C-alpha cells in the first residue's frame, strides 16, 4: 500500500503524471484495484455486522428466554429487556442478517471485489471501461450500506418481514413495527444497491467484451472472468425487476395503490386496498431472487476453478464444459423462480414446469462438481489456504446441492417448505460455498491486492475451524427441519412436538460461536498483513494468468510497458515437455505446440 503510484507511473508509458491527493487516491479513486479494496473492506465490515446479528438470534434459539449481557450490550433495554431478545427484534435481526449477507457481502462484496480486481488484470486491460462509473458504483454501494445500517436505529426498528420482504407484512406498519420507517429505508437502500450493481455490471460486461488484450480470445479467458461476465449479465437482466418490485411496494406503502394488497382487515380497520395480489410481489421478487443465488455462487465458482487448477498444478478439467455449464446455469436461472412458490396456491401445472426446469440445473452443477474432482485426480496439490477454501467450496456445494433436489421436487417441498431444512440447504449451498469462494479469492489474490503476504498458518487455522463449524452449524438444521420445525420462529418452546430436536439448537449455537471466533483470526490476519505482512513477490503461486505479470507495486494502467500479448489459454500447468510446471499466458507457443 505504500506504493508510490506517481513514481511507478513515471517509468510507465502513460502520459498523465501527477501527484495524487489522498482523496483521489483512496476515496474517490477511479482505479479498479483501489475500488476493489474499497468493496472488500466495506464487505468485511458489513459481514461482521451480520455475523453479530446471527449470534444474537442464535443465543435466543439455543437458550430461549434467557438474558445475555452480550444481547443487552448490542440492543439495550428497548429491544432486549433484561438481555432477552424481543420477538420483533428477533425478526428484524434475521431479516437484516439475510439482507446484508446476500446483497452486501455475497453480491456487492464478492462481485464488487473480484470483478474489479480481476477483470482488467486478467484480460490485460489498463482499467475498467469507465473508471468514473466504476467509482460511482462503489459509492452507491457505500451509501446503500449506510442507509441499511441507519435503518437499524429508527423507531420501530429495521425491516422485519424477512429478507424476502413479502407484502402485506412488509407493507403494513400495523402488522409489524419494522414495516414503518425501517422498511422505507430498506427499500431506499435496495434501490441504491441496485443502481450500484447495474453500474458495476454494465461496466464489467463492456470491459470484458471490448478491452481484452491482443490474443485474449474469449476461449482463452480464465474461468474467473467467464464467471464474472455471466454474473454481470444475469445481474443486469434481473436486478431491474427487483427495482420495479421495490418501487411498486413503495407506492403501495406511501401512496395507497393496490399492486400487492387486497381485502385486508387489520387493527380493527378494513383497508381501502382492493384488487392487488401479494403473489405478484413474490413473482417479481423471485425473478431476481433466484438468479441472485447464482449471482452469488458463479463468481465463487470462477474463483475456485482458477485456484484449484493453479494449486493442483493441473489444467482445469473440461475448460469448455466448465464454460458451457456456466452458460447453462446462467440461462436456466431465469426459468426456475417459481420453485420458491409451490405452496402459494400457484397453478399446480405451472409448479410442474418449475420442477422440471429447476432439476435441469442439477445437470450443469453436477458437471462442475465432477470436473473439480477430476482436476484434483492425479494432481500435484499445494495446500495454500486458498486451495483449502476451494476444496471446501466443492464439499459444501455437494452437500447443499443434493438437498436442493429435495426442495425442487414440489411434492417433497410441501413437507419441507419454509422449515429449517431450507435454512440448512441454502446456507450450505449458497452461503458457505460463496463465502468459501470469497475467502479463497482473498487468500489467493491478497498479494496482488496489497503487495503483502497473509500468514499461512493462521489461514490454516481459519479454514479448518470454519470448515468444521460450517457443517456443525448447518448440518443439524436438516434434522430440525425434517422434524417439521418452521423457520423464523422466535422460540420452539410453545410446541412440545419439537422437544426432541431443540437440543440441536444448542449444538448449532455453540458451533456458530466458535465459527464466528474463527473469523477473528481471519480479520486479524487480514488487517495485520495489510500493514505489516511480509512483502510479496510478483508471482507467488506460480500462476499462468496475466495479473501476475504486473508489478507488485500498484500503478495506474497496470503494466509499465505495453500491454502483454496472450498466446495460450491460462491452464498450461504441468504441460508435458515444458521445463516448469507452469507456462504463463504471455509465453508464445513453440513450433508445433498444440494449444491444449
Amino acid at each position: 500500500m505504500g506504493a508510490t503510484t506517481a513514481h511507478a507511473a513515471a517509468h510507465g508509458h502513460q502520459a498523465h503524471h501527477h501527484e495524487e491527493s489522498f482523496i483521489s487516491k483512496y476515496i474517490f479513486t477511479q482505479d479498479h484495484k483501489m475500488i476493489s479494496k474499497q468493496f472488500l473492506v466495506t464487505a468485511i465490515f458489513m459481514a461482521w455486522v451480520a455475523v453479530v446479528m446471527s449470534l444474537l438470534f442464535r443465543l435466543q434459539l439455543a437458550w430461549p428466554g434467557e438474558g445475555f449481557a452480550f444481547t443487552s450490550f448490542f440492543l439495550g433495554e428497548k429491544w432486549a429487556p433484561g438481555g432477552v431478545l424481543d420477538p420483533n427484534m428477533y425478526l428484524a435481526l434475521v431479516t437484516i442478517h439475510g439482507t446484508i449477507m446476500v446483497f452486501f457481502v455475497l453480491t456487492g462484496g464478492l462481485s464488487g471485489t473480484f470483478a474489479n480486481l480481476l477483470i482488467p488484470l486478467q484480460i490485460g486491460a489498463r482499467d475498467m471501461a469507465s473508471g468514473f462509473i466504476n467509482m460511482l458504483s462503489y459509492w452507491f454501494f457505500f451509501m446503500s450500506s449506510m442507509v441499511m445500517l441507519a435503518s437499524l436505529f429508527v423507531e420501530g426498528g429495521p425491516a422485519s418481514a424477512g429478507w424476502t420482504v413479502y407484502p402485506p407484512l412488509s407493507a403494513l406498519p400495523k402488522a409489524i413495527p419494522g414495516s414503518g420507517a425501517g422498511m422505507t429505508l430498506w427499500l431506499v437502500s435496495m434501490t441504491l444497491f441496485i443502481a450500484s450493481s447495474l453500474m458495476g455490471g454494465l461496466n464489467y460486461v463492456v470491459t470484458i467484451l471490448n478491452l481484452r488484450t491482443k490474443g485474449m480470445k474469449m476461449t482463452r479467458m480464465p474461468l474467473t472472468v467467464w464467471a464474472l461476465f455471466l454474473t454481470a449479465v444475469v445481474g443486469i437482466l434481473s436486478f431491474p425487476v427487483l427495482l420495479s418490485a421495490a418501487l411498486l411496494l413503495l407506492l403501495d406503502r406511501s401512496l395507497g395503490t393496490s399492486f400487492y394488497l387486497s381485502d385486508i382487515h387489520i387493527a380493527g380497520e378494513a383497508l381501502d386496498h382492493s384488487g392487488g395480489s401479494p403473489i405478484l410481489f413474490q413473482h417479481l421478487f423471485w425473478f431476481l431472487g433466484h438468479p441472485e443465488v447464482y449471482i452469488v455462487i458463479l463468481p465463487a465458482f470462477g474463483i475456485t476453478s482458477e485456484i484449484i487448477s493453479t494449486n493442483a498444478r493441473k489444467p482445469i478439467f473440461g475448460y469448455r464444459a466448465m464454460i458451457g455449464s456456466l452458460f447453462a446455469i446462467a440461462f436456466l436461472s431465469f426459468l426456475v423462480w417459481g420453485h420458491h412458490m409451490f405452496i402459494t396456491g400457484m397453478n399446480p401445472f405451472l409448479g410442474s414446469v418449475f420442477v422440471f426446469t429447476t432439476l435441469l440445473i442439477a445437470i450443469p452443477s453436477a458437471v462442475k462438481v465432477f470436473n473439480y474432482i477430476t482436476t484434483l485426480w492425479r494432481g500435484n496439490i499445494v495446500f495454500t489456504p486458498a486451495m483449502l477454501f476451494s476444496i471446501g467450496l466443492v464439499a459444501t456445494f455437494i452437500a447443499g446441492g443434493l438437498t436442493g433436489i429435495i426442495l425442487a421436487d414440489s411434492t417433497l417441498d410441501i413437507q419441507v417448505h419454509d422449515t429449517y431444512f431450507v435454512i440448512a440447504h441454502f446456507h450450505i449451498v449458497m452461503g458457505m460455498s460463496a463465502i468459501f469462494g470469497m475467502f479463497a479469492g482473498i487468500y489467493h489474490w491478497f498479494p496482488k491486492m496489497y503487495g503483502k503476504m497473509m500468514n499461512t498458518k493462521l489461514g490454516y487455522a481459519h479454514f479448518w475451524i470454519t470448515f468444521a463449524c460450517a457443517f456443525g452449524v448447518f448440518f443439524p438444521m436438516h434434522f430440525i427441519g425434517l422434524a417439521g420445525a418452521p423457520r423464523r420462529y422466535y422460540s420452539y418452546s410453545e410446541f412440545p412436538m419439537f422437544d426432541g430436536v431443540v437440543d440441536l439448537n444448542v449444538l448449532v449455537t455453540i458451533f456458530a460461536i466458535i465459527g464466528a471466533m474463527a473469523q477473528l483470526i481471519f480479520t486479524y490476519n487480514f488487517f495485520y498483513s495489510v500493514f505489516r505482512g511480509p512483502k510479496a513477490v510478483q508471482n507467488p503461486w506460480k500462476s499462468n494468468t496475466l495479473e501476475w505479470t504486473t508489478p507488485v507495486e500498484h500503478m495506474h494502467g497496470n503494466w509499465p510497458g505495453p500491454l502483454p500479448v496472450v498466446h495460450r489459454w491460462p491452464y498450461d500447468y504441468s504441460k508435458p515437455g515444458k521445463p516448469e510446471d507452469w507456462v504463463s499466458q504471455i509465453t508464445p507457443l513453440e513450433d508445433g505446440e498444440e494449444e491444449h
Partner: protein
Amino acid sequence: MTKLLILIVVVLGILAVAQLARVYELTSRLRNKREEEISAGDNRFNARMMWAFLVVYFGFFLWLCVEYKDKMLPVAASAHGVELDWLMDFNWLILFIVFVITNVLLFWFAGKYVYSKDRRAYWLPHNNKLELAWTIAPASVLAVIIIYGLTSWAKITSPASPDAVVVELYARQFDWTARYPGGDGSLGATDFRLINGTNALGIVTRESVATRLAELDAEIAKVDSTLANAILADTKREELNDQVGLMRRNKQRIINLRTIMEQDIAEKGVASTYMHGADDVVIKEFHLPVHQEVKVLIRSQDVIHSAYLPHLRAQMNAVPGMTTTIKMTPTITTDSMRLITKNEAFDFILLCNKICGASHYNMQMPLVVTDAATHESWYAEAMKKPFQTPAAPPAPPVAVPLDSAATAVAATVGTVAQAQPTH
C-alpha cells in the same frame, strides 16, 4: 466476576494468537522461508486433515441419523403423506449414494495427490467421453426423480371429489379459526369489511350487513361529534378525518355489497350464496373425520400465513384477497397416533409457517382426528351454535335500482362470492 474473567481470557487468547503469529513470522524470516512456499510438512498435514475430515464428517452425519432418527416426525397420518414419505425415502436413497461417492472421491483425491517436487501432475485437459458420461448420468437419474415427483404432485393437487368434507381455515395475527358449512352443507359468502367483534370471518348475511352498517353509522357519528366539539391538535384532527373518511368509504362499499346481495337473493332465492352463511359453524377447534377426503379452503384476514400440518404432510399459504385449497385424507386418528407415538399428550398441530409478525412462533391450533361416528356427534353439537339463528325464507325482493353505476361500483367491491370457489 465471571464475565470479567471470560473477558480477560478472551483478550489474553487474542494476544497469545497474535504473539504466536508474530513469533512464527520472525522465525520464518530468520530461516529465510517465504510465506508462499508451502513446506512439505504443511502439505502433508493438510492432506491428512482431508482424510480425517472425511471420517469425522461421515461420523457426524451418522451420529445425527442414529441419534435423531426417532425424534423426526412420526409416520404420515394422511393418504398422500404416505406416498410423500415413500418418495422422500426414495430420493434420500439416491442422494445418499451420490453424497458418499462424491465426497469420498473429493477428499480421497485431495488427501492423496499431495505436492511433491519429483512428480508432475497428469496432463488431462479434457476427455469428451467422460464429460458426456457425467452429463448423461445425472440427467437420467434426474429424469427418474422428476417423473416420480410429478406423478405424485399431479395426484396431490388434483381437485377434491365433490363429496369431500369442506372446512375453511381462516388465519389472522396470530390465531386460526375454522368454519364448517353447517346444516345446508355449503359455506356462505364473506366480505372482510363486515368483520367485527361478533363476525370474525366477515360472513355476509342480511343481518350481518345491517349490523355492520348500524355499527359504522354509530362510529361515524361519534367521530363526527368529536371533530365538531372537541378541541384537538391538528395532527389528531387530521388522523380522525382520515379515519372517518375510511369509515364512510367502507360504508358505501357495504351498501354496494348489500345491493349485490339483494339482487343475488332475488335471482336465486335460497340457493344464493348469501343465504348459506347463517348456519355456518365458526369455531376455534379443528376436527376432522378419519378416512374421509377433506377439502380445506384457506384464507387470511391480514398478512400471508401458511397452514402447515406436519403430521399430515400438508401445507398451503393463506393469502389475503384469495382462497387457496388443499385436499387430504387423514388416515390415523388422534387416539391411534397417541398409541403409535406412545405419547398420551400427542396432538396433530396446525401451525403457521409463513413469517407473520411478533407472535408468529406461537400461532397454532390442534387438529383432532376422530372416527366418523365421533366426528358426527361432535359436529351435531357444534351445529347447535351456528353463526346466526337460521334465517327465515327470503323476504320478498326489495326493489333495488340496478343501474350501470351501481354495477360499476359493485365490480370494485372485490370479494363478492367466496362461498363456491372455483378451484
